[in-house]
């Protein structure tokens, strides 16, 4: 099969085409690894676990963001061709490696760090699995920070300050976490100029999330909470 791979660093680069032997069971990451091992050892890409847990290997495949280690070539091959590029909406370091700093900086900016409401001297707070807030929080905890949603988001593409789906979904998790007491501070962090209100509800995040999470609904939840907070005079 013909595989076009993005080569270059920073803003400069072009697609380079390789002929890669096709196999019955072959992931997109297998294809990239074959090129690097058999044809061009200078090809730069990022991966770690190879089983869909670490979130390192996301790339654009035929124009769509995917976790390459769990994407079978057969599912995405178009006319016997593959086009593989670095993740959208992030600066490129080299070849297929995107600079993840903006993604994680926004994660921190959205208040993604857990701020415990008890000290280590106090007894551990019991959390019932059936607590409604816990049930909502549980829906998003399988996020692997792969940035596929961030690359899929057209709002991020047009509005670089926008925090993006993953960071906002994390904030929604904290907002519903019964161990978090200062919920207003969670809302304050996500209602600034790049906050949840900028989302256009296009839903690419939910459509492309490889773990089938639903950032779109999480952001909608944040918008509702922010509106309630505003109407109570806390905005």
């Amino acid at each position: 099969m013909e595989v076009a791979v993005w080569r270059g660093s920073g803003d400069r680069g072009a697609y380079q085409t390789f002929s890669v032997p096709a196999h019955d069971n072959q992931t997109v990451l297998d294809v990239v690894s074959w090129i690097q091992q058999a044809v061009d050892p200078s090809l730069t890409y990022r991966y770690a676990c190879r089983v869909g847990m670490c979130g390192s290997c996301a790339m654009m495949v035929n124009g769509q963001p995917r976790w390459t280690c769990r994407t079978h070539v057969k599912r995405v091959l178009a006319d016997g061709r593959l086009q593989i590029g670095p993740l959208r909406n992030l600066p490129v370091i080299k070849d297929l490696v995107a600079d993840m700093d903006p993604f994680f900086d926004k994660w921190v900016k959205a208040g993604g760090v857990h701020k415990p409401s008890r000290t280590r001297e106090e007894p551990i707070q019991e959390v019932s699995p059936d607590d409604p807030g816990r049930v909502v929080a549980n829906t998003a905890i399988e996020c692997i920070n792969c940035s596929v949603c961030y690359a899929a988001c057209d709002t991020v593409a047009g509005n670089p300050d926008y925090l993006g789906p993953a960071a906002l979904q994390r904030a929604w998790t904290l907002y519903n976490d019964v161990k978090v007491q200062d919920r207003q501070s969670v809302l304050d962090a996500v209602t600034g100029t790049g906050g949840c209100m900028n989302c256009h509800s296009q839903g690419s995040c939910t459509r492309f999330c490889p773990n089938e999470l639903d950032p779109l609904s999480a952001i909608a939840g944040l918008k509702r909470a922010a509106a309630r907070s505003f109407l109570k005079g806390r905005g």
Partner: protein
Amino acid sequence: MLDLRYYMAQRLSAMVMGPLVLGHLAVMIYAIQGGLSSAEILSRTQGSIAWFLFYGAFVVAVSIHAAIGLRVIVHEVTGLAGRWLEVFTWGTGAALLFMGARAVLAVTMP
């Protein structure tokens, strides 16, 4: 680019516009059933405080709603930001308010 105040202003102005648009359409459809001339329409609207408030509220809501909506589009398409984005937003709102107010006054002032 869109903070909570802009967001709420756009949502609340939409809530105002919704019923006013439906009211406008309903009255239009009702009023033209038997045929109605411009002079007959103006004779009903001129001097009417109710129609002044009805269309005045609509113009205010449109000015707020459209200015913020265009703010988002202009920022995302052209990258305009900072002070000039504020000038664009408030300028658009003021222009729509001026034009709408002229139209409302023209049909409701006696």
